[in-house]
């Protein structure tokens, strides 16, 4: 047993030192957000495989860039077939696959969840380093910063509005989340954060009504009744609330992952302020 452990550690050390020096050439991504970052930052020849989510119409922003890159279902077997020199994943997506691959001695890098736009910059830098594309990352960050300044100048004269998100199972988005930071940048006040809600938590329907936001962000396409979670979205009280105020419906693919596309989400939110 000890012998195996020794061999294993030695293997890890050797492989780590081998890969550290040069540019990774066979990168496999096993999650949506890392798929998109790879497509944006890495050179096409560096990418060996992406997850099937990269081609999902509702979720993926980079669907057109996927081209003929082979897709995987985030399983260990599929990943090792590509003999990857780097596997990238989100911290919470396919974490069991990531753990297994690491045990097998593969180089696995996991991106932490972004809780603000600053986090996105840090993430892009980090990802640029991992894939040896630092320059592209810096350019991308610079463009994002410029775009954000432009957006805030363009809509500066419009009044700030209050907003609340209501999603299946009555979950709302509070402070310390990327979405909250997007609202702030787009000129909104997130009432859930003001109410002291931190992270992603359920809110009572009554509290939602009492908060009386100017804008309700709600995905009405989810009100079809094939689960209780989405049936809540069809509660008559929400219909009445929407009758009397605007509601925001930002496409999921613009806001589900950390990346430069969030400026597009901010723009469309600010435009409707």
């Amino acid at each position, binding site marked *: 047993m000890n012998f195996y452990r020794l061999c294993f550690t030695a293997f890890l050390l050797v492989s780590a030192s081998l890969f550290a020096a040069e540019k990774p050439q066979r990168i496999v991504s096993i999650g949506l957000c890392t798929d998109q970052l790879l497509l944006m930052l890495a050179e096409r020849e560096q990418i060996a495989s992406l997850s099937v989510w990269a081609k999902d119409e509702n979720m993926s922003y980079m669907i057109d860039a996927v081209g003929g890159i082979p897709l995987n279902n985030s399983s260990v077997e599929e990943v090792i077939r590509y003999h990857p020199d780097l596997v990238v994943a989100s911290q919470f997506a396919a974490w069991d696959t990531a753990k297994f691959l690491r045990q097998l001695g593969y180089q696995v890098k996991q991106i932490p969840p972004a809780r603000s736009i600053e986090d996105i910059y840090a993430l892009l830098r980090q990802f640029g380093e991992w894939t040896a594309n630092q320059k592209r990352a810096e350019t991308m960050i610079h463009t994002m910063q410029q775009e954000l300044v432009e957006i805030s100048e363009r809509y500066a004269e419009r009044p700030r509005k209050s907003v609340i998100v209501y999603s*299946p*199972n*009555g979950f709302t988005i509070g402070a310390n989340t990327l979405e909250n930071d997007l609202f702030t940048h787009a000129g909104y006040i997130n009432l859930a954060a003001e109410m002291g809600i931190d992270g992603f*938590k*359920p*809110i*009572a*329907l*009554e*509290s939602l*009504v*009492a908060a*009386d936001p100017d804008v309700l962000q709600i995905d009405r396409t989810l009100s*079809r*009744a*094939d*689960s*209780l*979670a*989405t049936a*809540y979205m*069809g*509660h*008559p*009280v929400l219909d*009445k*609330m929407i009758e*009397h105020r605007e509601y925001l419906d930002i496409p999921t693919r613009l806001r589900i992952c950390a990346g430069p596309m969030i400026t597009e989400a901010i723009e469309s939110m600010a435009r409707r302020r």
Partner: protein
Amino acid sequence: MNIKALKASTLYGILLPVLLLVLALALNVGPVDIDPGKAIQDWFNDRITIESLILFDIRLPRSLLAMLIGATLGLAGASLQGLLRNPLAEPGIIGVSNGAALGAVIVFYYGIAGIAWFLLPLGGLIGALVAMIVIFLLVGRNRSIITLILAGIAINAIGGALIALALNFAESPYAMQEIVFWLLGSVTNRSVNELYIAMPFMLVGWGMILYCGRFLNALTLGEETATSMGFNVARMRLVLILGVTASVGAAVSVAGNIGFIGLVVPHLIRPFVAYEPRRLLLSSAITGAILLLVADIVVQVFSDNGEMKLGVITALVGAPFFLFLILKSRNVLQ
């Protein structure tokens, strides 16, 4: 027990005001403090305000639904105990509620419910009816408590497993997490939509059960006596079973399986109605409504995000009572 039976007027004179009081309390309890006076004023003046939305679109439908479901469960418990002549009969314990939940789950998660409003409660009814038929096949005219409980365990296990199976294959990513709702029941975020869907079936079911009151009285003397008194036993039994499955099926299809109300309520009331099954029915319905409303108030006081389920409260109170009943009938069991 030495409790004096009460006159009907006295009994309802106590129960009905208590019900109204509890309803008023339920309308005042919620995560947000509102002024009910302003809510009512706004509502009468056709103004949509925060207060009127909370009182009339959130709290009132939810509380009315809790009342109707509580009444259904009390009525179902009282009539099943009379029909099976068994003190432990209850829709939850004998598996009828799980059968109803299974029927509702299949209709709800596989897109059938969207076709017409009555399909959801109808699914509950059919599921409840199948469970009821199995109970009759297993227990039949046998009055043994043990047989009934064991049959109930088996039907509940099969029902629970099939619910899990059906949810597992459902397309919605939320389906599997919602098994808690179906097994423990809740009226949180239920609206006037659910009230409209379930009410017709419940009211028709109640009518059928209440129609069988005299038959239940006669049945206490045995089937032969009931027949000799002019009752068509097979027909009356069918009416009663359809009444119970229609009302329980509808209740479960909008609020899940809320246990033990149907067990506890008739035992609480029986001494006050001189152990007469017919008089037990309506009084059990009102008491069931009171108890479920109280349980829903407790749920809201202890968990303002609505994550706690009604069945948690009813089981915490009902299950010890169930044990007490088993201990009391131990001599019968041995």
